[in-house]
Structure formats: C-alpha cells, structure tokens
C-alpha cells in the first residue's frame, strides 16, 4: 500500500524541480508574496524590494487528467492492461483531457519606486499543454470500423495545444488610494516550441452500400496541424540547447499583458481580480504546417471489363482522392493565443487585530484570520476551465502565515490544499501542496501540484 514506485517518484521529482503550477489557488493573494504579483499585478505588497533566488524563487507543476487516473491503468490486479484501457476509454468523454503546466522562475525581482508604486520584473520559462481525448479517432485506431457500421467517427475531437516559451515581464503596482491598488504587467513572449491542432472538422462513416457491400464516407474533412520551432530545414530540431535558447527573445515572439486590482470594500472585506496572459505569439520561423481538407465517398473499385480500354483503377483512385481531398505542407506564419486566465476573489478578515511594520517604518493593521472565495478560469481550446475555491487564511504571526483551500474544478470535487509562508530574517520561504486528500494514493488523484519558493525580502 505504501510502496513508492521509483518511476512515479522520478516523475514527480522532475516535475517539481523543473516547474511552476498554473491554477495557483493557494498562491493567489497569499501572504503578500512577490509571486502573487504574477497572478495579480494589483496585489498589495509591503516591502522595499525583493529578489527571488534564481531558479528557486518559484517552481511547481500541475498535472491533471479528467475521466481517469494513473491507478485506473496501472494498479496491479487481475485484469489485463487491455481490459483496463478499454474500461477507461469507455468512460471517457470528448471533454476529458490531460493537461500539464510547468513554470520555472529564472529571475524575479522588484523594488519600490516611491510610496505609491512598486516595480517588479523577471523572466520565467513555461510549458503549457493540453490534449483532449480524441475518443472517436482512438476507437477507430484501437478497434477499427468493423464493429461500428453507421457510426460517425468525429475528427473534430482531435484537439491539442502545446507551448514551450520564455516570458520576460515588467510590471508596476500602484496604490491609488488606501482602499484601491491597481497594477499592470507587460510581457514579451518568446516561443521555443508550439504544436497545435484546433478547429478541426469532419467525420468518417462506414455504411451498408448500394453499389458495393459497404460505402465509406469522409465528410467535410478539415484537419490542420501547425508547428513552430520543431522543424528547421526539413529536419527535426533535437538539440535541447536550441529550444532553451529560443525562450529568450527568439524569432517567434509575442506580447501580452496582465492587469489586476485589489479593492477594500471595508476594513474587513477585500475584493480582487486579475486577467493574466492576455496576449499572443506570432510564429514565423521554423514553421511546418500540415493540412488536409475535402469530402470523399469510396465504395470500392468498380471494374469495367472493357478489354479495349485497360484502366489503372488504383492510380485513378489515388488521383481522384488527392483532387477531392487535397493535403499539403506549408511554412505560413500563424498566430497562437495564450491561454488567458481570469482570477477573482472576495475575502473577509476577522478575529484578533494585530499590527505589522511596513517598509516605511509605519505600521499596518491586519486580522489574524480570513475567509474567502476565489474563482479561476482559463480559456482552453474547447471550453473554458473553471475552478471555485473556498479558503481560510491564518496569520500565526507577522512572519508566519498559512492558507487552506478547498477547490472544485474539472479535475476534482474535493481538492484540499495547504500553504505555508515563513520569513526568517530577510529570507522568505513558501511551500504549497494541493490535493492533500489524495496524498495517501497519488496515483488515484486526477490532479496534483506542488509549489516551493525562496525569496529575499527587504522591509
């Protein structure tokens, strides 16, 4: 029961060391951490300047899968792997997906420009990928069409997007009044890799035919695959250094912004909101796109039995198919949109009131407890993904704070998370873990994430 498999361990170590999570419900608005500014540039800060430890200021990973878990496939029991895969495939829907988001902060720093304005900047690398389960195409590949007469195999279910990029950012947080803080962040994206296939359409159907036993229909097929940064001079790029190098001001670049605010509705009630990654990337170098489009009906090869006119039926078939369902490659530039995220929260603070020292040697009151609700949404190719989080924050002291969350999203209905932020001298350390309820059996969890970071904060 409590045996930790080496492979799983390795997997999570790799994710933990290389990455930074996406739905950061624990981090959002927590403990005035510098990293909260990346989720809401309008978050309040209370220090003169900060520097994140390079490569260690923020790393985490989020892996999620709806409709199935690792244990559904790999638990040791008496069932064959084929039966398990079939069972999983049978219960999956076309909205089920697998996602991975990782980030690693290379640099994160900030300084107070004056009493009103705090400037923060940095550079991080991100991998973001989502694959919707193409149930029909998978069935066609795994089972074939024989069992599925009259079934429309829907090609539009082929839907995935993967990005690897670097993000250079500069933001400013302005305290407009005692009650209202607003912030914005400008981002320059540099894509190392983009692979996406979206907005596909078409069906494949086999039916009982009229002229022959069966007829096969390919209706309104329109499938595309766009890639950038993967192929150069007709050869796959297999040097990791090339990918890493392209994350910093490479040729496939784009821009984006984050905006956010914090509004104190009363002494105890705080309302926040942000839009993150409202932007795009223009892919124009090392492009390789593929497409196929058209409709076709095939009911076999019709013999003519004309001895005076021999026909190359197969060649005619190929030519006819190519004419009606043309396919090709191109190197056309294209734009890909970043998965824009929306965050909003309302927080009610209560309990014992205490004071903490601010950067300007003044004192600011804070409550030891807070309850609130957060809503998170990310725009994905098929539908937006939503997450609703209830949270409780506890300040044990000015330097030690904790946050507990309960999140409902596409991946789990009982995701309990915990975060801790501690400051020892000028060193701030924070750690966060999601899905604690599944900790006794991670393989049965639909999503998992871990975040750790170290900052140096100067009050």
């Amino acid at each position: 029961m409590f045996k930790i498999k080496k492979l799983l361990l390795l997997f999570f170590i790799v994710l933990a060391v290389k990455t930074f999570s996406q739905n950061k419900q624990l981090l959002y608005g927590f403990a005035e951490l510098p990293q909260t500014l990346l989720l809401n540039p309008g978050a309040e800060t209370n220090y003169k300047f900060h520097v994140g430890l390079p490569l260690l200021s923020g790393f985490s990973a989020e892996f999620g899968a709806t409709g199935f878990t690792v244990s559904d496939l790999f638990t040791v029991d008496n069932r064959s792997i084929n039966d398990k895969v079939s069972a999983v495939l049978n219960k999956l829907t076309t909205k089920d997906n697998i996602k991975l988001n990782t980030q690693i902060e290379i640099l994160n720093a900030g300084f107070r420009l004056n009493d009103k304005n705090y400037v923060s900047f940095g550079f991080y690398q991100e991998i973001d990928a989502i694959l919707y389960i193409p149930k029909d195409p998978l069935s066609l590949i795994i089972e074939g069409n024989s069992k599925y007469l009259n079934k429309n195999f829907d090609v539009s279910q082929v839907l995935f997007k993967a990005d690897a990029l670097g993000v250079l950012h500069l933001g400013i947080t302005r305290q407009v009044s005692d009650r209202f803080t607003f912030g914005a962040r400008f981002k320059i994206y540099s894509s190392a890799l983009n692979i996406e296939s979206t907005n596909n359409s078409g069906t494949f159907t086999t039916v009982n035919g009229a002229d022959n036993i069966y007829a096969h229909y390919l209706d309104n097929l329109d499938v595309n695959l766009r890639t950038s940064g993967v192929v150069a001079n007709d050869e796959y790029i297999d040097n990791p250094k090339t990918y890493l190098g392209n994350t910093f001001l490479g040729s496939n670049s784009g821009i984006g912004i984050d905006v956010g605010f914090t509004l104190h509705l009363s002494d105890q009630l705080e309302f926040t909101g942000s839009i993150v990654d409202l932007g795009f990337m223009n892919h124009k170098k090392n492009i390789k796109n593929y497409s196929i489009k058209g409709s076709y009906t095939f009911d076999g090869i019709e013999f003519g039995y004309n001895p005076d006119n021999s026909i190359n039926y197969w060649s005619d078939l190929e030519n006819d198919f190519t004419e009606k369902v043309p396919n090709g490659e191109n190197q056309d530039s294209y734009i890909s949109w970043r998965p824009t995220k929306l965050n909003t929260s309302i927080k009610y603070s209560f309990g014992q009131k205490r004071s903490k020292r601010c950067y300007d040697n003044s004192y600011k009151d804070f409550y030891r407890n807070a309850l609130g609700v957060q809503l998170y949404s990310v725009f994905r190719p098929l539908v937006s993904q939503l997450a609703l989080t209830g949270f409780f924050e506890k300040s044990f002291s000015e330097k030690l704070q904790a946050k507990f969350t309960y999140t409902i999203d596409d991946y789990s209905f009982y995701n309990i998370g915990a975060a801790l932020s501690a400051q020892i001298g000028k060193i701030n350390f924070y750690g966060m873990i999601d899905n604690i309820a599944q900790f006794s059996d991670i393989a049965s969890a639909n999503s998992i994430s871990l975040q750790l970071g170290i900052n140096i904060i100067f009050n």
Partner: protein
Amino acid sequence: MVIKKLSAMLFCFFVIASCVNNLDFSQIEEYSISPEYTVSLTYFTISPPQFFNQGGLQLPEISDITDFRGLENSYARDKLLKLDFNVEIKNEFDRDLTIQISFLDDNMNVTHRFNDLKVNANNLNYTFDETIEVSTNPNIKTTTKIKVLILDNSAVPLDASAKTEFEFKSSIKIYVNV
C-alpha cells in the same frame, strides 16, 4: 544553509509522505491492440454485351485487374493477422458462371487464389466467405493486385440483347495486431 535544509526537508516530506497503491508501469509492455477494419473491395455489374468482342464473337471468359496497394506499407504488412474476404453475387443470367478471384504480386505471381465461385443461373443471393490466415499463407502479404475472371462454360450461345445483369460485390475485413 538553513534554507537549504528547510527546502530539502519539505521536499522530502512531500515525496515520502505521499504514497501510491501498488502500481506496475511495465504492464504497458503487454498492451496490444487488435483492430478490425472493413473495407469495400471490387464491384461490378456486367451485361451480356460485355462477353462479346468488337467483332461480335462471344468470349468464353472476361477478366479485369486492379492494383491494390493497401499492403504495400511494411508496417501494415508486418502487423497483418488474417483477412476475411466476402462476396455477394446476383446472377440474372440464364447460365451458370464461374468466378476466379486471384491475389497477385507485382510480377503477376499468384499470392492467393480463392476457391472457384460457381454461381448457378438465376441465383440472386449467392454469397461467399473465405478467411486467409497470414501465418499459413505468408505470401498474401506481397499482394499488390486483384484479378477477377468470369468464365462462361455453357455450350449455349449468350443472347447479347438480353436485359439480364450479373452483379458482383466484395469486401475485406482486415485483422491487425499491434
């Protein structure tokens, strides 16, 4: 130093405190798929005039042939298990006809010849099924052509003006194991 220790401790806590049920990822090596693809093959409808040449002489047999490149891909060839060949025939002719179906390779060598289909006169619901196991007929994998020959063994001349038809339909079910 303190930070390093604290980081290491927390990281170890997360990793060690987390558990998984007994998993075996090597099961994936046993995973195989066995799809079955049904594909239409050749079909035709012929009438008596097609048994006569330009000089008006009746031919004892007529045949046609097509390339079939479905097994040309080495991957498909290697994973092929067996083939189910199905035929449906409607014979309105007033005579028995014999159908010879052969699979051929690029050099016109026979890779597989089906049993002759003897279709009686006016049989409107003739069916034929044959399974080809690749393990016992490995030559089938080199098939690149399909030939269908129709033999008229009747001693009675065919009426070229008759409005009868001979309808032939075929399909193949391909069994693959990956």
